[in-house]
């Protein structure tokens, strides 16, 4: 643990530094590969939508050693149309999923299962979703997604700067694509709980990005006045300075989510908890990656195009500064003693 803290100190001063910004082509390529794979998986396999989205009925019988074959036989005998999905959940439950049925058919299935397994109909857990309801849910989920992206973009543009908002949204869209792609590829069920998890991640991924951007903004505040670092170099230092924090916040966020996933998948087998935490778990991992490897390089690229930043880069390079990493290091070490003296200037902001 203290090794990690020590590393935090070295990263802070720039003694140890990873070139996040300079090697952006590498990170972009990795992400592009993932996104292409995601698009491929989406078009070829599509998402495995739960009954909440496409309509259907699900019946769960609580009975020790209930066999799949018995359940299938009982339900098939009622003559309901469409495909049946029958599975065991844990050792004491069996679940039957059907296409959208009408009320009489639902009752028939419940009666058949109840008499087959010798339980009362009221003890069968059921969920019946009408086909038009699923469309409604899908529409709302999409509204929620777009509404969220727009609101956050506006807010970040106000709280930070417009280009940071753009870079943050690029990172979020990146997270959305890759997470959805993983779902398509692996064939996990997409349920409303998944969608909740998913929307939450977007918030979380932005939370991470906000932490990094806040530091970037601080490091680049007086950048044009000092002419010691280019925007990219200052950004890179900021990412390195916040990486321990990013790692810690992500890990701390993953611990409870991991617990839900463990308990949800282990004890309950299926349902809200598992769907929710799985989406969160995957999304958090992707979100942490993008807040370090995607958002800052995109921001740096956007800002480096500004005339003031081009001029700054010329001045910095004109001084014959060494390559990026070394420059960041020396600059910061030179700066170090002056830290306290800079104090009043920094305190000027809220």
């Amino acid at each position, binding site marked *: 643990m203290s090794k990690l803290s020590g590393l935090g100190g070295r990263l802070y001063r720039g003694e140890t530094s990873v070139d996040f910004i300079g090697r952006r082509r590498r990170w972009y390529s990795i992400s592009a590969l993932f996104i292409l794979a995601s698009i491929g998986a989406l078009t070829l396999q599509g998402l495995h939508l739960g009954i909440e989205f496409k309509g259907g009925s699900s019946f769960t019988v609580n009975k020790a050693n209930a066999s799949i074959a018995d359940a299938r036989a009982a339900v098939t005998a009622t003559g309901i149309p469409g495909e049946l999905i029958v599975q065991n959940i844990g050792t004491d439950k069996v679940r039957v999923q059907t296409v959208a049925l009408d009320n009489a058919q639902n009752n028939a299935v419940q009666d058949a299962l109840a008499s087959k397994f010798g339980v009362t109909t009221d003890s069968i857990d059921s969920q019946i979703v009408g086909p038009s309801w699923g469309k409604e849910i899908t529409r709302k989920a999409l509204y929620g997604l777009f509404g969220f992206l727009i609101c956050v973009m506006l807010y970040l543009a106000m709280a930070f700067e417009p280009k940071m908002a753009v870079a943050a949204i690029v990172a979020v869209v990146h997270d959305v694509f890759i997470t959805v792609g993983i779902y398509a590829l692996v064939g996990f069920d997409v349920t409303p709980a998944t969608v909740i998890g998913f929307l939450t991640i977007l918030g979380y991924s932005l939370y991470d990005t906000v932490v990094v951007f*806040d530091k970037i903004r601080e490091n680049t505040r007086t950048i044009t006045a000092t002419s010691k670092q280019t925007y990219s170099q200052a950004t890179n230092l900021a990412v390195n300075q916040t990486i321990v924090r990013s790692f810690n916040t992500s890990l*701390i966020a993953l611990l409870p989510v991991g617990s839900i996933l463990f308990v949800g998948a282990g004890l309950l087998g299926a349902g809200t908890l598992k769907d929710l935490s799985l989406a969160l778990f995957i999304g958090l991992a992707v979100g942490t990656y993008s807040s370090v490897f995607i958002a800052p390089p995109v921001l740096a690229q956007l800002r480096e195009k500004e005339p003031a930043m081009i001029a700054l880069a010329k001045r910095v390079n004109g001084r014959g500064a060494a390559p990026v990493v070394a420059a960041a290091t020396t600059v910061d070490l030179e700066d170090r003693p002056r830290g306290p003296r800079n104090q009043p200037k920094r305190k000027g902001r809220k």
Partner: protein
Amino acid sequence: MSTTNKPVKTTARPARSLAILGLVLIAMTGLVFVQGATSVRLGLDLRGGTSVTLQPRIAPGESGKVTNEAIDQAVSIIRQRVNSLGVAESEVAAQGSGTNRQIVISVPGDTGRRVVELVGQTAELRFRQVLARAVSTGAVDATATPTAGVSAAVNAKFAVLDCTKSENLQGTGADSPTEAIAVCDRSGTTKYILAPAEVLGRQVSKASASIDTQGGSAWYVNLTFNGEGTKAFGALTARVTTLAEPLNQVAIVLDGLVVSAPRINEAIPSGSAQITGSFTQVEAQDLANVLKYGALPLAFDRGEVQQVSPTLGADQLNAGLIAGGLGLGLVLLYSLLYYRGLGFVTVGSLLVAGSLVYLLFLLLGKWIGFTLTLAGIAGAIVAIGVTADSFIIYFERIRDEIREGRTLRMAVETGWQRARHTILVADFVSIIAAVLLYFFAVGGVRGFAFTLGLTTLVDLIVVFVFTKPLVTILSRLNFFSSGHRYSGLSAKSTGTLPVVKEA
């Protein structure tokens, strides 16, 4: 501005804000007992029950029919029907807005199917003269003679109508009162062609279930018409009683299905009638309730029906609690290992945040009927991480400031100035997410959004009035300011170079 003034100013406050927080907590606890809100209201998915979501069925060009008044009226009619079940804490509420509104019915306990059938019935009751009758075998009856005075379309539909198919026994309620129709009876054995309706459900003023003590133990429903209904029913029965079979039968049609079609032996001017049809006691009582409380102003589709047995509910509650305990434990463990002494600040802050959230759950349950669902528990657990993140942002900032060469007491203040901004922006993004989820989502998702938003607000409160003041107080202790190796602020853990650079 002077750098010396600021710390002095802030150091005067921490004890006060801690004291205020303590008082607020005590006041909230007192309020909980005064209001008698000593247990969290659990959602149906945690204690078992049935929830039904009804969507208004909108025929093309009729979207104007789904008005707020119509929905409110439907809600109050359904509420009366549900209350007739006598289950405590049942709830009927409208959700959404405009044409996109739903009615959500939640009934705890083992009532299952009965609730589903009761609330879904539109209860459009009509009395119609029978024009033709046939036994429905399932085979197409090509030889049937077309009934006179009825359109070819209805005759054609009658010929192919198969009452053994369950889709024809749905009771869709889609019978237009001004037209002749071809329909099945409830048991699926007989099909009818019926004349336009002459008496309507809204002309019924009273309905009750009775048992026929003479003819075995058959349950039936007694109806009393209002003035208008009495006149119409009298005229109908007087006209048909002299006709030949099956024209002397009057069909009682509920939601588009024939409940019974008694032969009329004499005119009935008294304004009362009976519906027989081999009912059980429960069926007769439910039907009487449905008729008594009136027809719904709109037809509804069952959007979603969810039935959770109490066993599963208890399992889900347990799982949620175990996951929460485990998650909290891991976060605390990590904080203590990594931040040593400062880790105890995290422990304390999370405990305070936890108590605040729990008290709010109790009070909001009492005040606005907040119920905790499984998704809500998940939201609260996820919030543990978000809350702890705020502390990490602050602690790492303090370490950064120490690396800049500041003393701990300075670092605590300057670090706070900067961490505060980050925490505010980051939490605000979480709140945007929660608010949008709440307004766009339906059902369980709203519970998640609500807890996420609530816990994020609590996080802000705790960071400002507990964590920061506590750290300020602790920074005065020698254990922390001297950088003790277990304080989490030692030179080794911050990685500060021991060399004094200024020299």
